[in-house]
């Protein structure tokens, strides 16, 4: 893998803010120059709507927009670009499956399984659909280390379960879930599985064929792309079965005043003028990410977490939340009795960007009996010196509040 210094050179934010210690990549990653330039160039030289114009510019933009599907398909090992639906992000992708796929299949008495570490985006859509359809949302418990309790999970599987939706890497704990095993177990009961790849897509190898997941949801902005664009991968048969949930232009085949037939997947899910510049930007982000070996990125994330754990252990009264041996580049912690928001304000005043709060995993915080955590999260441009500054400032904060 290239040196961190070299990689940081790809990201203009660091030259714009030389003092910035950015430890908030789980919230959003920074964008390399190639993505920024690609979007700028799109608006400067290529802008037009897609699938409508018959002039050259429109045809070229349409082709470029569609070509990004193939890039995404290659990145995640999908069979075909037809299995790639553009959405506005992970949340939108999950909502689409909950409403367009599950709602029609779910009957009173059925069950949906999620884990106790899901963020709100992979909880509320299922919770709502279950309420509407009289089904039951069941929560797979965690063990003391913040890992999915596999034995209990196996016991929860039955013919009543109509969907399993699970996060690949927890945004609150950093745990990497044994999703291959979970998917394989679920498939024994023909349960479709959605994988929330928001935190994993840029940090570990993600191959939908190897994983055999039925759906994969992720966002562009956590993989060096722009905000407001995301992807839903779905196995072709399931996407064909799924109903569109937004209706309008460009997703139709034939329309009369009396009735409408829809275009095939993935177009039937993409009503109206979509986020064209977002898709173009996503294409550049895929190019950027694909130039790395994600196995090596994973190795680097583990190194950074191990380094951070060593450094943070020198801080008095620090308590690491999430102790799994299988973790990515996320470290959540509590500093004595100091509230995470107070910690984050003091860190922010020293140009150290972290996230503090419940990380949109309120039920998990309730389970752990803590109001919130402070979270440091890493990416390919993160460096040990940033962790050193974090640890040094945490010692100051601890002293101040003692």
């Amino acid at each position, binding site marked *: 893998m290239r040196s961190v210094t070299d990689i940081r050179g790809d990201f203009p934010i660091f030259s714009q803010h030389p003092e910035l210690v950015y430890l908030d990549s789980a919230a959003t990653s920074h964008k390399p120059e190639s993505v920024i330039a690609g979007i700028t160039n799109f608006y400067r030289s290529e802008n037009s709507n897609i699938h409508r114009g018959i002039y050259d510019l429109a045809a070229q933009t349409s082709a470029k927009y569609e070509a990004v599907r193939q890039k995404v398909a290659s990145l995640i090992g999908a069979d075909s670009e037809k299995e790639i639906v553009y959405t506005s992000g992970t949340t939108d992708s999950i909502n689409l499956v909950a409403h367009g796929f599950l709602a029609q299949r779910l009957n009173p008495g059925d069950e949906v399984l999620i884990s106790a570490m899901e963020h709100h985006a992979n909880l509320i859509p299922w919770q709502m659909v279950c309420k509407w359809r009289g089904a039951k949302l069941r929560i797979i418990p965690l063990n003391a280390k913040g890992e999915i309790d596999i034995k209990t999970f196996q016991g929860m599987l039955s013919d009543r379960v109509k969907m399993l939706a699970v996060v690949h890497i927890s945004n609150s704990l950093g745990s990497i879930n044994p999703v291959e095993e979970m998917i394989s177990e679920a498939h024994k009961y023909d349960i479709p599985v959605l994988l929330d790849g928001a935190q994993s897509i840029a940090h570990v190898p993600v191959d939908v064929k190897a994983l055999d997941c039925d759906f994969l949801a992720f966002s562009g902005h956590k993989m060096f792309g722009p905000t407001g664009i995301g992807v839903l991968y779905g196995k072709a048969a399931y996407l064909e079965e799924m109903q569109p949930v937004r209706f309008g232009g460009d997703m139709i085949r034939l329309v009369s005043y009396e009735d409408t037939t829809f275009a095939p997947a993935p177009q039937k899910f993409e009503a109206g003028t979509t986020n064209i510049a977002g898709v173009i930007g996503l294409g550049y982000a895929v190019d950027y990410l694909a130039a790395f070996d994600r196995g090596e990125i994973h190795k680097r994330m583990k190194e950074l977490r191990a380094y951070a754990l060593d450094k943070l252990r020198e801080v008095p009264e620090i308590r690491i939340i999430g102790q799994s041996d299988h973790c990515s580049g996320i470290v959540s912690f509590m500093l004595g009795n100091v*509230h995470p928001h107070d910690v984050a304000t003091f860190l*922010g005043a020293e140009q150290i960007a972290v996230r503090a709060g*419940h990380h949109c995993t309120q039920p998990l915080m309730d389970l752990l009996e803590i109001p*919130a955590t402070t979270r440091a999260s890493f990416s390919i441009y993160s460096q040990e010196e940033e962790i050193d500054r974090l640890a040094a400032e945490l010692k100051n904060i601890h002293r101040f*509040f003692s």
Partner: protein
Amino acid sequence: MNPRLKELYQSVILKHSKEPVNYEKREEAGQHLDAYNSLCGDRFHLYFDLKDGKIKDLSFHGYGCAISKASTSVLVEFLEGKSLEEAREMAREYLASLTEEGKTDELPEEFEAFGAARDFPGRMKCATLAWEEMVEFVGKD
């Protein structure tokens, strides 16, 4: 360590967050307000009774950051025993003191300490959480 931030915390906030005024649950109280910030999860319950038009036996309980806890403690300290009209006036003064325009030289030290939150806009809600809930109760006018 940022001097403005130290100032914000040192003068009043650390004291009040460590030794909050009337920090106790009083489920039997006649009035019960729930100051909750759904964005961060901070939540304080205010307990009091209304006797002869005055706020009596005001206490609070809950969890949150140092700023939200201290600002709630200051609220309890200042509004205990006040009439609804006095409470309304004081809450108005407190909330105004957190804006550039509302600053005056005659504020209690406890109020001025939170004025430093002006430099940290992300924390403004922490300084106003319980006060805004009280304003809802006593009325804005």
